[in-house]
């Protein structure tokens, strides 16, 4: 073959490759697609999560040889937090017998929710996605434990009340919600509006358009309102800009609380000293003082297989990647306990998620005691209304400054059930009867 002909043949092979691809997973492996964003305006948030994920999976493989002898294999796919690219990634990777998908974007989650029952791939949108999917009777394939945006908003309001001296003290207080103008950012709004009515605080909703590099006007407005508390649902580059703007406008940082996607090292470091005192909510502790981190260093980093730099371990979002990977691993373990020690199917993994019961004892075994809260998933409740912690930036690291704060389940759950009827109805779902589930 001449050079030109061989180039043409290669190009043809490359072009037709995906048509014939779709290699079945090995019998002793379980495949997990990872939708990540290590580039683009959301990379500061995306990189630590992706690293935490990979490090924990590596730990399971290196230390235990997989889960019950079944190796975890994964493939990363770059989405740039863009819905269209996310769908492309999902379509490409689901064919490899994906056990579970973690979309890491509320926008992509909304895309995948209707596909999950069709493709038999459960979705774990840990602490993001559609809050209504917490009602497992309507959304059997979607999980968003340990807690969702609505629970978080109510827990943050509870925290504010604690600081003010009681829920009755909220009356007349001014609270501003600065949010990313997307389905994600808007999630907390209905809950905040309900609570504003109930506790008679003055709520102002301020939207920041994607990607959020220009927020001067927003923060001037905040300055004018002079709120008692600020809550923020930001993501990616929006967070650091917001923290910088707030600091430069002289806003009291200890009364500025980010949600759990708005409180990472990369969000506060660019603002320097100004960020000191900034708070954020979380559902797991920051830092590297836990046994699981030592194990990761020992089994992964010391073998030169670490995904991140050792110093950036312990960032809140890195730790979130670990928690998410641990949830996935435990769900696979739960599924195997029922269906045998072989790679579980999508339906079996779904069962595993639905019967996940991470007790304090189990967390201790995993080296995660005190790292995150125990969680129990049921058929009705895919969220678990887990409690949150509040962490504060001291200029060098994040410190936990609160006890576990429970969300206001009595307010949030009825709203979730109401929304599930609406959202489920849109997809023409019917409610399943959980008493009939095995």
């Amino acid at each position, binding site marked *: 073959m001449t050079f030109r002909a061989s180039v043409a043949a290669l190009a043809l*092979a*490359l*072009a037709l*490759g*995906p*048509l014939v691809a*779709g290699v079945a997973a090995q019998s002793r492996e379980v495949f997990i697609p990872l939708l*990540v964003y*290590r*580039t683009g305006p959301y*990379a500061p948030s995306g*990189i630590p999560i992706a690293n935490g994920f990979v490090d924990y999976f590596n730990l399971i493989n290196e230390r235990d040889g997989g889960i019950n002898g079944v190796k975890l294999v994964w493939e*990363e*796919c*770059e989405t*740039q937090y863009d*819905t*269209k690219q996310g*769908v*492309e990634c999902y*379509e*490409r990777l689901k*064919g490899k017998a994906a056990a579970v998908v973690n979309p890491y974007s*509320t*926008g992509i989650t*909304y*895309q995948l929710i*209707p*596909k999950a*029952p*069709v493709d038999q791939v459960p979705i774990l949108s840990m602490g993001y996605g*559609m809050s209504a999917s917490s009602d497992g009777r309507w959304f059997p394939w979607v999980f968003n434990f340990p807690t969702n945006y609505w629970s978080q908003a109510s827990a943050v309001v509870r925290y504010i009340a604690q600081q003010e001296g009681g829920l009755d003290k909220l009356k007349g207080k001014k609270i501003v919600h600065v949010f990313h*103008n*997307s*389905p994600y950012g*808007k*999630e907390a*709004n*209905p809950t905040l509006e309900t609570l504003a009515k109930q506790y008679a605080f003055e709520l102002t909703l301020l*939207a920041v358009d*994607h990607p959020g590099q220009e927020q001067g006007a927003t923060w001037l407005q905040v300055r004018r309102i002079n709120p008692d508390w600020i809550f923020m649902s930001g993501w990616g580059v929006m967070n650091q800009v917001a923290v910088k703007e707030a600091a430069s406008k002289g806003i009291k940082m200890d009364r500025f609380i980010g949600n759990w996607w708005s409180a990472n090292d990369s969000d506060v470091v660019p603002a320097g000293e100004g960020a000191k005192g900034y708070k954020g909510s979380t559902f797991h502790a920051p830092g590297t003082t836990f046994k699981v981190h030592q194990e990761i260093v020992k089994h992964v980093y010391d073998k030169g297989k670490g995904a991140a730099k050792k110093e950036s371990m312990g960032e809140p979002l890195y730790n979130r990647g670990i928690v998410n990977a641990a949830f996935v691993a435990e769900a696979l373990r739960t599924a195997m306990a029922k269906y045998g020690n072989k790679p579980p199917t999508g339906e079996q993994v779904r069962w595993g998620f639905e019967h996940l019961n991470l007790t304090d004892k189990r967390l201790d075994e995993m080296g995660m005691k005190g790292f995150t809260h125990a969680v129990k998933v049921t058929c009705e409740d895919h969220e678990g209304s887990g409690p949150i912690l509040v962490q504060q930036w001291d200029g060098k690291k994040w410190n936990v400054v609160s006890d576990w704060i429970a969300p206001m389940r009595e307010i949030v759950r009825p709203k979730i059930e109401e*929304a599930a009827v*609406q*959202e489920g109805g*849109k*997809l*023409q779902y019917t409610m399943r009867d959980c008493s009939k589930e095995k």
Partner: protein
Amino acid sequence: MIYREAGQFKTTYSSDQAIFPIVQDKWLAGALVVAAFLVPPLVADEYWLQAVLIPFLIYALAAIGLNLLTGYAGQLSLGTGGFMAVGAYAAFKLTTAFPALNILVVIVLAGVIAALVGVVFGIPSLRIKGFYLAVATLAAQFFLVWLFNKVPWFVNYAASGTITAPPRTVLGVMVTGPQSTAGARYVVALGIVALFALTAKNLVRGRIGRSWMAIRDRDIAAEIIGVRPLRTKLLAFAISSFYCGVAGAEFVFLYLGSAETLAFDITLSFLVLFMIIIGGLGSILGSFLGAAFIVLVPIFLTNAPHMVGLALPVALQKQIELMVFGALIIFFLIVEPHGLARLWQIGKEKLRLWPFPH
């Protein structure tokens, strides 16, 4: 091509004015369309249909729409994303309000609504031209997206602000919603594109297209010979927005399944504009070539390292993809500023003389 019109005598005006005056061309094009309808739904897997072919068809339709306005009528527009959003949200509102209405009718009606909106935003084109008009259409882009984000009525008061395509059937086959197969959606998208591409081709060959080109080439001269700028320009805006609106409705109903306003932001407008610049301004074929380039090349670049067994870190791979893609765009613009359609034309002329060039 390697074949010629030798021996094919035209005896009527209509055969002389056909889209494909050469019989071989006609057969080839016909075979291509038939193959496009039959082969992919039978052969291609879901990934190819869902992630490659369906978006290609939809972008091609949007590119045809913009090409009518920018390439033929000479009115530079950056409002494509906004007009597509109008189509998408109009289709969503229509189909949720009248669930019994056939989804194809809904998509066409959504296009009509987009056309009306397009006319409104086309009014400034009577006074301003060129880059200044681009800025005016930019206002349409930002205003429309802002409007859909701001007013909850457009999303039926969904808390999240997303619109979801409900399940709808055509002739008893599910074509939208999660239960529909990618094959069915592909055939619908292809049918719409084929129909509208043929319409566009005939439009630009006829009186309307000629008046657009007259306006584009020199509007004062066009006015003197009797082309009415008001009607011509607004018609261009209306038809272009109609195409974009239909593409936008398809974008949500046949491709994404659910969408938020972010899907229609300014990057979409730029993407479609790049498609027609790379594909060829003032060419229907160019719209397809440009869409293919912009949709397929990044996907090809993403998959290429995997196929040769190269496991690159995803971030590095994405950066390489962006760099190569950018370089390719510059390369093609330097090699042929008139776009891929012109390259195709040159290739055809060369082949006509092959293997004995002068």
